């Protein structure tokens, strides 16, 4: 890991391109997310916002550009030889270690259905970090309490509501003590009445100083919690800035028409 300073952004995306075959999904994205800040990414579906998030923790192999998290280049090693810089792909083990520091919450929760809520939260610390089981169990119980599910520890995901499942998923990600949390439309698969409980957990998390990148359609959440709002369309960032600016006084036509539709 390279030397880091407090002023260095947590996430640095430079000239990011992603192609799926011939489909050009991200066409040069530059973005910085400062430490302890919340960046909300808005945009119509197909604009590349989920892909951006998945590139940050290397669930997608990037086609061009650089992504740095906490100053560390993700997925590759730069080797300079005779004045030419060549990229070497990192060993899967190293990639796994890089991912372990980034928590991710999915639209469809993706909890492990054969494990109870508690076991879901314990799994990664025990299997990845080698935390002793007793210690992992105590910590998992604390995290479930933090998301308001202490009494659901012994339930299987199928026995929980969508909102409860998503809160377990957040606890599962937090169990790895991540320095960055990625939320990929965390409330889009929920019944409207369950959205609030998940957003409230996310709000608490933001207040605790967690660096977060959130892809969502919840404009109210963006306005209240975000430090920066990014509006994406067709694979590029159209507009970015503080929420009051992007949401209250959008400059671009595309942003205006999108907000007119979702508000």
């Amino acid at each position: 890991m390279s030397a880091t300073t407090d002023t260095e952004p947590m996430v640095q995306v430079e000239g990011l391109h992603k192609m799926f075959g011939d489909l050009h999904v991200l066409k040069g994205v530059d973005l910085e997310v400062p430490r302890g800040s919340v960046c909300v990414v808005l945009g119509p579906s197909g604009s590349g916002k989920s892909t951006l998030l998945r590139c940050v923790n290397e669930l997608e192999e990037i086609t061009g550009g650089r992504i740095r998290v906490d100053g560390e280049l993700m997925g590759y090693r730069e080797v300079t030889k005779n004045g030419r810089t060549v990229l070497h792909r990192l060993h899967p083990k190293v990639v796994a270690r890089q991912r372990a520091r980034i928590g991710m919450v999915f639209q469809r929760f993706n909890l492990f259905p054969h494990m109870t809520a508690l076991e879901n939260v314990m799994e990664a610390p025990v299997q990845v970090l080698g935390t002793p089981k007793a210690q992992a169990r105590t910590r998992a119980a604390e995290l479930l309490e933090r998301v308001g599910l202490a009494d659901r520890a012994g339930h299987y995901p199928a026995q929980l509501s969508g909102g409860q499942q998503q809160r377990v998923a957040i606890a599962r990600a937090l169990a790895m003590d991540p320095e960055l949390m990625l939320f990929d439309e965390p409330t889009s698969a929920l019944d409207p009445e369950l959205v609030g409980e998940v957003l409230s957990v996310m709000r608490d998390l933001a207040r605790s100083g967690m660096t977060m990148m959130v892809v969502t359609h919840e404009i109210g959440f963006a306005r209240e919690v975000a430090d920066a709002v990014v509006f994406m369309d067709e694979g590029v960032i159209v507009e970015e800035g503080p929420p009051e600016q992007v949401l209250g006084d959008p400059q671009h036509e595309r942003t205006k028409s999108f907000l007119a539709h979702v508000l």
Partner: protein
Amino acid sequence: MALPGQNAPDRAVDPSDPVPDRIHARPVPRPGRWISAVVLLVLAAMAVHGLVTNEKFRWDVVWLYLRDVNVVRGVGWTLLLTFGSMVIAIVLAVGLAVMRRSDNPVMKSVSWTYIWFFRGTPIYTQLVFWGLLAVLYPRLSLGVPFGPEFFEFRTQDVITAFWAALFGLALNEAAYLAEIVRAGLGSVDPGQSEAARALGMKDRKILTRIVLPQAMRVIVPPTGNETISMLKTTSLVLAVPFTLDLTYATNAIGNRTFLPIPLLMVAAFWYLLITSILMVGQYYIERYYGRGFGDQSAGPRRRRGGPGGKRRGRPSKQDLIAASGTTKDDPFLEVTP
């Protein structure tokens, strides 16, 4: 016609019943069901009658040889072949299935070719072949191909009829099981391995901790089926020739005593008994791997319960709906005469 309020005077009104005027309707008459049931019972009685009264079955001989030492020993060898070959086959099959899903083209095609060959030739032919291995290669050696040899042994010393039978069955079965495992692995939502990867888990851990346990739900029922099928396929090891299994043992006695029918009954009884025990085992294994899915594990999990542990807690609402029997979820219910 009864006046409102006067209907059903014989009905005792239960004041604690939350449903006022609960319906106690008479069922639709279904005479067809009665007729078909009676016909079937008569046919069954005829079959039993034919079995019991025909003296050629020689039930006394059946009873005698059921506990014959050679027969019981045959049961032992049959069980050993069944379980031994299934265990080897399962290990091979997981390997083959993982190879089949690999990105490495060599791995993929080796797996494909193995399955193609062992599924494509009869088990009988394969067993005969393994039995003849010692003729084909009288000496086997371990070394570098076309290079030096490290050590050498006589084939017939190492590959006896038992090992030829065991591996013959296992290698064939592995090809079928590999396809079952592959289907099982494919049935797991890709979001599962994605979530595990996002948590920093490595491929091997993702397979053993996340994907395989969920795939088991799909893998176990057909594998139970394969085990039962294997139990009876062991009767073909005569082709090797291996001559201690249940079928061979009972046939030998039958031929010697000129009583083939009662000895067939003996063999059938033992195969049926073992199959019944296997079915019970399968039920518990299925219940274990079904945890977290459907109504098998309704209610929160109590303690770490093993496969046999009682884990049923508070029944879910869906269970209660099903248990009440007022919902017709049986697709055949309406067409049954």
